[in-house]
């Protein structure tokens, strides 16, 4: 059943090609049908391959299909080869499954947009690139996908390119990503120099066989991780993600919640042998993840734009995934990636639904009391919020708990403490969002209130489906307290994740940790309730009492401004100088100069063409003399 797994990326690729070549001439209904069907076909094959994978014994993994031999330059080989193993299978299921639902949602959301065909072309192209990323069997193919999703991110963020803010946001995303990619590429180079191949199986075997030292492994791991920092929006390269909300909401859901930004986590999990071998790299990953989780959560506390809150929430949650990977619990990190895909995309799509209902309003201060009017959006949104807060029996609880428990079990108490603090903040800001949007007094604009309507089924059905998965998706990875060996998710990933050492906590400790997680979640919700339902004046008083703190948080710690002064302005100045002095003067000078020289030569030579026969004959003679002279000597 796993024989055709290599078709998974190729079907969206074909669809993209058709849309690129003929899209403008095809009717809109067909375009959306083809785009969605392509992803659905990929999803179907992913499911079939997954089932086949369950029946494959571990010796045969990973299953690799070499599509063609791509680069052979001396000792440098890179083939276009795809591989099927538990890790890539999970990622393909998430990408195609959630992707399909988002494609369907987009049919309703983008129905009135002029760039309809262009949108679906980009979306399919993105799916293709993402699938290449997760299914590549060597670093080069993964990097191709990595760059591809970066490109599609730029195209889709700046989808409404006539809006200045959107175009700038797309540029910002691409450039910041590039910084990470430069480090990533360096890491790949080092691997090629020291190990000789980019194939994951070869790399893992080489590290196991002691081909590189600990310090070299740390260097490579850090370089690769910097690439992940750029792609997955961690500190210090997270600044592009909030701006990326300029793109259409389904794009934010797909790319900046479920799939592209999680590529960094996937990469770390894929290279887990390298990261485990170099112990210090793991700690760096965990620390950065934890700090980002808290840092981003604090910024989410004060934002008024619904999508910005969700963006910072995404940054924070990815921090949690990196905590999981950093403490050695790669399976836990991947588990959170998987559940997060569901509830975060649900939250984004639901936010889009709210925007759609309010004719484009994004400011939460202008919402309120919407739960009466949006019978589908409100419950699904609520389910997503509960899931992300980590309330038991929904998926977010299981994955977040798995991460925090592993952090505690591996002795990383500081990381654990930051994670707990982040959980409080998460619960708080999510429910602040819920309360401001759906409860309380209506603060709507009169125009918006007039056109208030629930979204069409194309948008609400995916919401319902995602809500369903947000609830049940967690049950494949039950914690130890529920019973031994119920962690199907973790066991499924065993062939890929090298288990370093199992640390077992006593059952009592496990229960205590669970209770602490639940308690902090409930605390956060309670505080939000107090602030926004019980006594709505409290936020106002809080701000009045701590104006400086509020300003700092509201302006996102002025990070953008700091970066601008330190890096951006000087780069722009430098490029202007280069343009004036080098481009205009030197390059244009050379080009214009060659033209002027040719002109001048032409004028000089035309003096010889006097029209007189004698002058011509003279030149003949001189030429003949020179020739004879040359032949003589």
């Amino acid at each position, binding site marked *: 059943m796993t024989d055709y797994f290599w078709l998974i990326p190729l079907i969206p690729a074909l669809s993209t090609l058709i849309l690129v070549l003929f899209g403008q001439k095809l009717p809109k209904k067909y375009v959306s049908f083809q785009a969605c069907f392509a992803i659905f076909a990929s999803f179907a094959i992913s499911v079939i391959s997954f089932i086949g994978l369950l029946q494959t014994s571990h010796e045969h993994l990973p299953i690799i299909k070499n599509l063609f031999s791509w680069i052979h330059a001396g000792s440098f080989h890179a083939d276009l080869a795809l591989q099927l193993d538990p890790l890539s299978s999970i990622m393909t299921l998430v990408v195609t499954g959630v992707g399909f639902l988002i494609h369907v949602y987009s049919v309703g959301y983008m129905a009135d947009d002029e760039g309809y065909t262009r949108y679906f072309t980009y979306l399919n192209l993105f799916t293709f690139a993402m699938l290449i990323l997760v299914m590549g069997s060597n670093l080069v193919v993964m990097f191709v996908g990595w760059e591809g999703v970066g490109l599609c991110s730029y195209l889709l963020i700046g989808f409404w390119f006539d809006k200045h803010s959107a175009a700038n946001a797309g540029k910002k995303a691409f450039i910041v990503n590039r910084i990470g990619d430069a480090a990533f590429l360096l890491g790949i180079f080092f691997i090629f120099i020291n190990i000789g191949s980019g194939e994951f199986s070869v790399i893992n075997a080489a590290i196991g066989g002691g081909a590189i030292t600990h310090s070299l492994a740390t260097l490579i791991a850090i370089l690769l991780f910097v690439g992940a920092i750029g792609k997955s929006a961690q500190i210090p390269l997270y600044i592009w993600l909030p701006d990326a909300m300029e793109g259409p909401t389904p794009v934010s859901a797909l790319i900046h919640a479920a799939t592209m930004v999680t590529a960094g986590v996937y990469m770390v999990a894929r290279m887990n042998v390298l990261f485990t071998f170099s112990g210090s790299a793991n700690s760096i990953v965990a620390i950065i993840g934890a700090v980002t989780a808290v840092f981003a959560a604090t910024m989410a506390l004060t934002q008024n734009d619904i999508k910005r809150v969700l963006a910072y929430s995404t940054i924070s949650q990815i921090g949690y995934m990196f905590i999981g990977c950093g403490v050695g619990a790669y399976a836990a990190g991947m588990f959170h990636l998987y559940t997060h895909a569901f509830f975060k995309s649900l939250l984004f799509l639901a936010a889009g639904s709210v925007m759609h209902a309010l004719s484009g309003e994004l400011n939460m201060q202008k919402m309120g009391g919407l739960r009466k009017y949006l019978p589908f959006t409100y419950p699904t949104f609520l389910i997503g919020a509960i899931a992300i807060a980590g309330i038991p029996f929904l998926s977010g609880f299981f994955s977040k708990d798995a991460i925090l428990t592993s952090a505690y079990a591996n002795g990383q108490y500081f990381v654990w403490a930051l994670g707990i603090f982040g959980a409080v903040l998460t619960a708080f800001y999510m429910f602040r969002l819920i309360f401001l949007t759906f409860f309380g007094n209506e603060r709507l604009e009169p125009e918006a209130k007039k056109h208030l309507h629930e979204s069409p089924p194309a948008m609400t059905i995916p919401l319902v489906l995602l809500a369903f998965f947000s609830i049940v998706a967690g049950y494949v990875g039950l914690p130890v307290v529920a019973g031994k060996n119920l962690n199907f998710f973790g066991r499924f990933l065993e062939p890929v994740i090298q288990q370093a050492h199992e640390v077992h906590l006593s059952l009592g400790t496990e229960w205590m940790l669970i209770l602490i997680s639940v308690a902090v979640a409930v605390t956060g919700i309670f505080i939000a309730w107090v602030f926004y339902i019980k006594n709505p004046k409290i936020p106002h008083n809080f701000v009045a009492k701590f104006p400086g703190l509020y300003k700092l948080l509201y302006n996102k710690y002025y990070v953008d401004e700091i970066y601008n002064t330190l890096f951006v302005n000087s780069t722009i100045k430098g490029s202007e100088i280069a343009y004036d002095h080098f481009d205009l003067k030197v390059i244009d000078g050379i080009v214009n100069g060659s033209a002027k020289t040719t002109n001048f030569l032409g004028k000089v030579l*035309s003096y010889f*063409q*006097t*029209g*007189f*026969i*004698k002058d011509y*004959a*003279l030149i003949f*003679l001189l030429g003949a003399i020179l020739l004879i002279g040359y032949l003589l000597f």
Partner: protein
Amino acid sequence: MIPVNYFLILSIILFVLGTIAFFVKRDLITQFMSIEIMFNAANLAFLAFAKSAGSLDGQIIVFFVITVAAAEAVVGLAIILLIFQKKKTIKSEDIKLMKG
């Protein structure tokens, strides 16, 4: 017998005289005639070498040169006539349509 180099020197002198004549004169006809002198000087050299090498090929070449020179003289003179008809002058410096 007369040594060959005498003929060669003579041929060189005649050729150079023809060249000088071409540059010194201003009318087309005399310039054309000076070209004929140069042809003859070359023929002389050919024959001198043919004699010194003992082969007849040189003489054949001279035969052909004379023939071709005749044909060329015909056409050249026809052109000169035409120029005179059009421009009423045979001064070579009045013919400068090809200037520039």
